[in-house]
C-alpha cells in the first residue's frame, strides 16, 4: 500500500467562514454609542447585503428611489450567493443556480432581462433565456457501482421494481405540478407566495417526506436516496425531518408542463455570485461593507421624520456610526432580530425559536488537471451515490472550458446531527480535518484526485439554510415573522421557510414595495 500512493503535492488552502468573531459580538451586545458627528440622516436603511437586501435595493432604485444605504457585515456582498475568483477561475461559495422562472415570477424575469440573461419574453410571459446561460449539456451524472452514468437517479444496477417506483414517483410529482386550486394558482410554485394555500397542499406540511413516501407504498432504497438527495440539496435535511410539502415542492415547483421534466437550469461559472455582481454594480453608490449593525430602535411615532435609529460598528474605522431613518429593511435571518432590534420579543411577542438553520461545508478544490474518468464524461453537477456529500459542481463547465486546470465546488450539508451540534463541530475541526474529508469523498470516484489537487479552500456556513421541517412552513411563526414591526420591514429567504434565491429575491422586492408604499402615503 505505502509506496504505491500517488505523488502527493503538499496541500494548501484556507479555512473560511462568515465573520464569526465579529458576528458573535452581536451576542455580547455591543454598547458603544456613536459620537454626535457620526450620525447621519437617510430615509431608508437596508440591513444585510445578501440577495434579499440587494434585491430590496434594486427594487428601490427601479422605482427611482436612491436615498438609502445598505449595510453589510462582511467585506463581500451576496451572503450564501457569494463567489470567489482565483486567476481566471470563478467559482461559487454556495448557491450556484436558479431554474428558469415561470411567467408568475415577473420581477425576477425583469432582473434577468436587465442582466441580459433573459433575451426575450414570449406573448404568454415565458422567458427566453440566452443559450450560454442555460446549463450546458452534459448537465449531471451520478457515480454508482464504480461507473459514472448520466442523470441524477442511480439507475445503473437498479431493479425493475426500482425503476417502476421511480416512474410512479415522477408521475406523482407531475400530477402535483399540474394541480391548480380554486383560484387557478399552482399548488407548488416559486416563489411559494405565488402558489396555493389550499388545505390539501398545506396538509402535506404536517408530516415528514419519509412518512408521506411510506404511505404511498414506496420501498425502493434508490428512490428514497434520490428524493433525499433533493431534500439535502435544497434544505440540508434528511427525509424524516423534511416536511412532505417541501419535499414535493422541490420537484413539482420546477415542472411547468406535463411534457417537460423540469425548468431549465440557469447557471454561471461563479454560480449565483453572477447575480450578486450585477446587483452590487448597480447599487455601488449605496453599498457599505464591513458594518456590524448591532442596534435598531424603531420609532414610536411613525410620522416622526428620521425617528428610527440604526447603529453599526464600522470595522475599518473601528468606531460606531449611527443613522437616523424613516424605514429599515431588516434583510438578515430572523434569528438575529432579537439581538439587533431593541425590545423585539417584548414588543412583538414573537419568538424566533422556530427558525432552525442547517449548517454546511463548502469546499473549492483547485485542480491542475481533470481526474481520470470511467463512464459518462465530466458534467456540471457530479453526484456520488451513497455519499453523505452532495458531490461537486465544475466551475469551468459553463464557460465551455473542457481541458486542464479547473475548480470543483464540493458541498456537504450536516444532516445527521442537530444544527447546534453541527455548528460546534464546524468551529472545532481545523482545515486539515475538513480537507481530508473532502478528498476522501472525492477519491471514491477519482482515485487519482490527490495527485491533482493544488489547493482546497473550505467555507463553513453555520446558518446556511432555513429548515422546512414538518409544520414550519405553514406554521404561525413564519407567517407572523414577515409582518413589519412598525418602521421595520423584514426581508430574508427564511421568511419562506426555504432557502432559495427566488425566495430571498421575492422578500427583498416585497419589503421594498412596502417601504415605497409607506413613503407614498
Amino acid at each position, binding site marked *: 500500500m505505502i509506496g504505491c500512493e500517488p505523488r502527493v503535492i503538499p496541500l494548501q488552502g484556507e479555512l473560511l467562514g462568515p465573520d464569526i468573531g465579529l458576528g458573535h459580538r452581536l451576542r455580547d451586545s455591543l454598547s458603544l454609542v456613536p459620537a454626535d458627528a457620526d450620525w447621519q440622516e437617510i430615509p431608508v436603511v437596508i440591513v444585510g447585503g445578501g440577495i434579499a437586501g440587494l434585491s430590496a435595493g434594486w427594487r428601490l432604485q427601479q422605482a427611482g428611489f436612491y436615498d438609502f444605504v445598505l449595510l453589510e457585515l462582511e467585506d463581500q456582498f451576496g451572503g450564501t450567493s457569494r463567489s470567489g475568483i482565483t486567476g481566471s477561475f470563478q467559482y461559487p461559495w454556495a448557491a450556484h443556480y436558479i431554474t428558469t422562472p415561470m411567467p408568475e415570477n415577473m420581477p425576477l424575469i425583469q432582473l434577468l432581462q436587465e442582466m441580459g440573461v433573459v433575451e426575450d419574453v414570449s406573448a404568454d410571459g415565458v422567458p427566453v433565456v440566452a443559450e*450560454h446561460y442555460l446549463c450546458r*449539456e452534459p448537465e449531471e451524472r451520478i457515480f454508482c457501482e464504480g461507473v459514472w452514468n448520466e442523470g441524477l437517479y442511480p439507475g445503473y444496477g437498479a431493479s425493475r421494481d426500482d425503476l417502476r417506483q421511480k416512474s410512479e414517483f415522477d408521475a406523482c410529482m407531475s400530477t402535483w405540478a399540474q394541480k391548480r386550486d380554486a383560484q387557478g394558482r399552482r399548488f407548488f410554485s416559486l416563489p411559494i407566495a405565488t402558489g396555493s394555500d389550499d388545505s390539501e397542499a398545506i396538509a402535506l406540511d404536517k408530516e415528514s417526506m419519509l412518512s408521506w413516501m411510506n404511505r404511498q407504498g414506496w420501498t425502493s432504497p434508490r428512490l428514497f436516496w434520490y428524493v433525499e438527495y433533493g431534500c439535502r440539496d435544497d434544505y440540508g435535511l434528511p427525509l424524516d425531518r423534511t416536511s412532505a410539502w417541501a419535499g414535493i415542492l422541490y420537484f413539482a415547483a420546477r415542472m411547468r408542463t406535463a411534457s417537460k421534466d423540469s425548468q431549465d437550469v440557469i447557471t454561471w461559472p461563479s454560480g449565483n455570485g453572477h447575480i450578486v455582481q450585477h446587483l452590487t454594480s448597480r447599487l455601488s453608490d449605496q453599498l457599505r461593507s464591513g458594518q456590524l449593525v448591532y442596534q435598531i430602535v424603531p420609532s414610536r411615532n411613525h410620522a416622526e421624520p428620521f425617528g428610527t435609529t440604526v447603529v453599526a460598528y464600522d470595522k475599518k474605522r473601528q468606531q460606531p456610526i449611527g443613522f437616523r431613518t424613516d424605514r429599515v429593511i431588516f434583510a438578515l435571518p430572523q434569528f438575529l432580530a432579537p439581538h439587533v432590534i431593541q425590545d423585539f420579543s417584548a414588543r412583538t411577542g414573537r419568538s424566533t425559536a422556530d427558525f432552525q438553520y442547517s449548517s454546511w461545508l463548502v469546499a473549492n478544490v483547485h485542480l491542475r488537471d481533470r481526474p481520470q474518468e*470511467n463512464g459518462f464524461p465530466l458534467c456540471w453537477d457530479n453526484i456520488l451515490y451513497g455519499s453523505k456529500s452532495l458531490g461537486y459542481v465544475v466551475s469551468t463547465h459553463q464557460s465551455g472550458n473542457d481541458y486542464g486546470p479547473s475548480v470543483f465546488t464540493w458541498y456537504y450539508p450536516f444532516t445527521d446531527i442537530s444544527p447546534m451540534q453541527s455548528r460546534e463541530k464546524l468551529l472545532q475541526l481545523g482545515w486539515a480535518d475538513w480537507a481530508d474529508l473532502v478528498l476522501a469523498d472525492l477519491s471514491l470516484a477519482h482515485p487519482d484526485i490527490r495527485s491533482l489537487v493544488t489547493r482546497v479552500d473550505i467555507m463553513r456556513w453555520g446558518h446556511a439554510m432555513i429548515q422546512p421541517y414538518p409544520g414550519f412552513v405553514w406554521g404561525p411563526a413564519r407567517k407572523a415573522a414577515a409582518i413589519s414591526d412598525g418602521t421595520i420591514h423584514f426581508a430574508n429567504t427564511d421568511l419562506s421557510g426555504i432557502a432559495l434565491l427566488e425566495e430571498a429575491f421575492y422578500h427583498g422586492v416585497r419589503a421594498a414595495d412596502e417601504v415605497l408604499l409607506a413613503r407614498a402615503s
Partner: protein
Amino acid sequence: MINRAPLSLLYLNVLAIATCGLIYELLAGTLASYVLGDSVTQFSFVIGVYLSAMGVGAWLSQYIQSNLARYFIEIELALALIGGVSAPVLFLAFPWIDWFRPMLFGMVFSIGVLVGLELPLLMRILKEYLDFGDLVSRVLTFDYIGALLASLLFPILFVPYLGLVRTSLLFGMLNALVAWWSTYLLRPLLSSRGLERLRWRAILVTFLLCVGFFKADQLTTLAEENALGGKIIYTTHSPYQRIAITQKRLGFQLFLNGHLQFNSVDEYRYHEALVHPAMLGNEPPRHVLVMGGGDGLAVRECLKYSSLESLSLVDLDPAMTQLSKNFEPLNRLNHGAFSDSRVEVINEDAFLWIGKPGPQYDAVIIDFPDPGSYSVGKLYTTRFFRLLQKRLKPAALVTVQCTSPLVAPKSYWCIVRTLEAAGFHVRPYHAPVPSFGIWGFALASISEFDSTPLPFDRVRGELRFLTNDVLNGLFELPADLQPMDSEINRLDNQALVHYYDSEWNRSD
C-alpha cells in the same frame, strides 16, 4: 509438516491470488471498453461472466478429492498463462477476428473458473491446521485485502504507468511465481514424482511472460497497427488526444483518437472542396481564419491566394500543430504551411477563443473533428456560430466540414439547420473522398446568396480536384442526400452529439 512453514506465508498466497484475480477482471473490462466502446455494458458483462465463472469454479472444486496441493499449483500455472497473456492476446486479436466477443468472454470465463477453484482448494489444504472459524475469517480477510489492493493499484499505478498489456503480463508472472513458490511451501503435501518438472514448468512460464513484459512496447504498437490498418510511423499522447500516423503502400494517414483525419492519397479532394468555396467572395480574401485543421492542409489551400495577408489558425492541440511543422512527410504535404510568415498559430480551444474580441475576417474555414463528444459538439452550436458572426466582415464566406451526409444524414442536416438558426444563409454541398466516402460541407454567409453559379475564375493555385463544373456540381444534391428537418444543436441540448452517436454506431 507444513505447520513448520509459517501460516502467514500461506496468507500471502491468498493475498497474491486475490490481487491477480481481480486485476484480470479489471483488465478484461477496461480492454473491452477500449476496443468495443460503451464501458458500462462492457464492464457489466465482464463482471457478470467473471463472477458466475467463479461460482462454477467453486462448484467444480468438490470433484477434486486428492492431491489438493498438486492441483492447486497446476491451477496457478494455468491461470498465470491464460491471465498473463489475456490482454496482449485480446489486443492483437481484436482487429483480425470476427468472434472477438466470444473470445473475450471465453477468456474471462476460464480465468473466472480457475480463480473460483483456487480459494476452496487452498482452504481445504489449510483446514487441517486451523479451526474452521479462524480459517474462514483469515482467508477471506486476505482475499478482500487483495481485492482492495488490486482495485486501488489498477487505476492509480498500473494503467497509467505500465499499460494494460504489461500489467497483464506482470500479474501472470506473479501467479507463476506463486506456483513455483508453493512447490516449496506445500512440499510435505506433494509427492516427489514429477516435482522437479513442475518447478521447471513454473520457471518456464515466468520466463515467457517476462520476455513478453519487456517486449510489450512492440506488442502494443503491433496491436494498434492492426486496429488502424497500417504501419505506425509516429504516435504520441497529448493532453487532448492520441495522435497516430500510419503508412500504407501509397501514402500515409493521420488518426486522432483512432479516427481517420486524412489519407495523403486523396486528402486534396477534401481540402480543395473545404477551402476554395470560402475564398470566392467579391473581394480577394486578405484575412482568413482557419479553425481546427492543425494538419495545415487547409492552410496550404489558403496560401495559394496571393491576396492573402494574414491567416490565423486556431487549433486546440500544440502537439498537432508542432507535428505538422516538424514531421517531414506532413510538412511536405502541407507545403511548409507553418513556415509561412503570414500564418499565425493559436493553440486554444476555439470555443473560448471565439468568445474574445478580435479582428474580423474575409473568409473562415471550419475543420473541426466530427462531433463525437460534448467537448467537440459545443463547436457546432448556435452559440458558437453566433459568436463567429461577430468575427466576420459583412461579405465574408464560411465553410464548415459537416461529417458524412450519407452515413449520418441527421447529423449533417443538424449542422446545416443550426447554422441557419444562428442567422446564416447556407448552401449545403458534398464531395466524394475515397478514404471517407461521400463527405458533407456547408457554405455559409450572413448575406444572402444569389442563384448564379460560383465564380470559379476566382479560384487561385494549382488544383487537382476542382474544375468549374465540378465545383458547381458539388452543390447539386443527389436524391439520397435530400434536406431533412432536425433539431437545432444548442449548448443546453447537444442534439448533434446524440445524432452523431446513434448514426455512426448504427453504421459500424
